[in-house]
């Protein structure tokens, strides 16, 4: 059986890629996609923990479905923001959203 660490390493790598994308990318679509990547990294970790823990398989996967449902809603909101932003500014660069600047 593949050791747990492998799965966790994959999840961590995926999470890091997602986090990098959220921080570094300028296009709002890419930012939202990277956010999804981070969520899925967590999903992998949850599923892996579920299979390796003492409480037995199946329990942890429930969380994955909840996360997927929330992620779907979140993507809907995120893309709506993207559309609203495009209508307002005709660009999708998140750097433009600096109205809160002190």
């Amino acid at each position, binding site marked *: 059986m593949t050791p747990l660490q492998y799965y966790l390493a994959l999840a961590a790598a995926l999470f890091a890629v997602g986090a990098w994308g959220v921080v*570094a990318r300028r296009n709002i679509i890419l930012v939202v996609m990277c956010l999804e990547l981070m969520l899925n990294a967590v999903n992998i970790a949850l599923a892996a923990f579920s299979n390796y823990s003492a409480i037995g398989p199946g329990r942890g996967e429930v969380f994955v479905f909840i996360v997927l449902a929330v992620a779907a809603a979140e993507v809907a909101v995120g893309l709506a923001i993207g559309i609203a932003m495009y209508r307002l500014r005709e660009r999708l660069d998140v750097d433009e*959203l*600096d*109205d*809160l*600047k002190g």
Partner: protein
Amino acid sequence: MKAVVLLIPLLPLVSFVFTGLLGRRYLKEKSHYASVAAVAISWLLSMYVFIQVERGQTLSWQIYSWIAVGHFSVDIGFLVDELTAIMLLVVATVGFMVHVYSIGYMHGDKGYYRFFAYINLFMFSMFMLVLANNYLLLYVFWEAVGLCSYLLIAFWFPKVSASNAGMKAFLVNRVGDFGFSLGIMLIFVTLGTLSYSGVFAAAGGLSGGMVTAICLLLFTGAVGKSAQFPLHVWLPDAMEGPTPVSSLIHAATMVNAGVYMVARSNPLFAHSHTAMLVVAIIGTFTAIFAATIAMVQTDIKKVLAYSTVSQLGYMFMALGVGAWTAAMFHLLVHGFFKGLLFLCSGSVIHAMGGEQDMLKMGGLRKKIKITYWTFLIGALALSGFPGLSGFFSKDAVLAGAFDGGYYYFWIVAVITVFLTAFYSFRLIFLTFFNEPRDARLFAHAHESPWVMTVPLIVLAVPTVGAGLLLGVPPESGHIDHLLHGVFAAAIHAPAHEFGLLSASLMAFSAAVGIAGILLAWHFYLRCPWLPAKACKRSGRLYTLLLNKYYIDEIYFAVIINPVRRFSGWLWRIVDTGVIDGAVNGAGWLAVGAGRAFRPIQSGKIQGYLFAMMLGLLALLAVYLILTL
């Protein structure tokens, strides 16, 4: 009697509120109706009270318990005895006449209603001052009359000199009032009470030093209010106010408050020989000091102002040598004739279209007859001409000094009589005799309307008659009997018979007064070129007198300018440097800090997120390091 006494101060107060509130909009030219009516009634009531007191009916009435803390209590209450009655007589009579006179004098002034409102407030305060039955109430109204004095000196406040004179009066009085308040506190601390009766009953139990301290502090207040040296400087400047004010407040009533207060405190002063001596020295010195200045002044009101200072000095000398009755007698009589003289000078100024310089007058005798005759009567009374009121009161003061064995004071006072007669008639001769020195002003000169001349005639009556009525025979006249009870504690020696010595002293002082008049006549009528020559001959002395002994300049050099420089230093270094520096520094610190930290708030969400992640990682790292 109670209702009457209560109404005396209350009517002017009601009229003050009425005139003050409605005067500007509604009463305007009719502002004097209520105030003159109120004071007229107060005058009638004061007369009634005086007659009642004369018949032996006095009143001590506690109306309201004002402050009651533990054993200490201060009442609002009235004490009406012979001393109060005499003060009421002066205040009400001169007050009433000045009110009537002001109708004419202030006619057409922009502040007509304001004038009557203020002067009513003054009447209220002054009545309360003499009616009060304890030191605290006295002090309250002592300050209130000071306030009215300030308001009325600076009545024409757009004029810089007038508003400065008002401030000067207020500030100089503060110096005296500070001492007065300390004296009252000392009385409270040592005796635990402030009512006259309580204080005087307990005065005997105080140590000698303490009584002297209390008396000297109280006297400091009197020095300020009654314009004695060295706090006399405000009174001549107070002449910037309208002339009726000079007459009422700065000649006949308020400035007498100091004399009244010392006379009222006679049971205290009787216990301190030192304090009495100080009172006598200050009084005598001020009398001759001010009289010499009055000799060379050319402003008609300034002459009278210095004369007032000098006469107040007489009163204090009388108090100091123990001639209490004589002091009050002189106060009463001086109130009448000096009030009259000021009103006359107002009439002259009115006639000359506002000119106050005597050197531009002359020859007015024929043009303003009523003013001339009343002025002459006043000046004769001031000079102590035999038969007139001033003669008897002044002689009572001189006799008091002589009988008490204060011969040096007596000599100085006699010299002052001479100077007084001289400057009074210098004023008369310069103003009313010779040829007019300013033809244009002279051509315009006219007698004042009857509202102004009638008060002159009315005041001339007591100026002539009060002495004969109250002061004859000398030293045991009506006023001596009247005031005997009030000063019983302070007068030890029984009044001796009026003998040959007293009569010859009286004749001597009368002769000195007449000599002064003759000298003035010689200088200003017979040989009019003499004054200029005398001025040249006396050179420096003349300059010294003309500049009022440089007292104002000395105060500027010693007190005012150093204080100003110190204030300037405080302002520039401490205020703008340290205090403003600290406050502004705090502001700049906040601005600087904001500027330094502002780049962090870029508004870019990704930047925030990155920072958040770094923070999270840092926390995680710390956690790992601590657990492993």
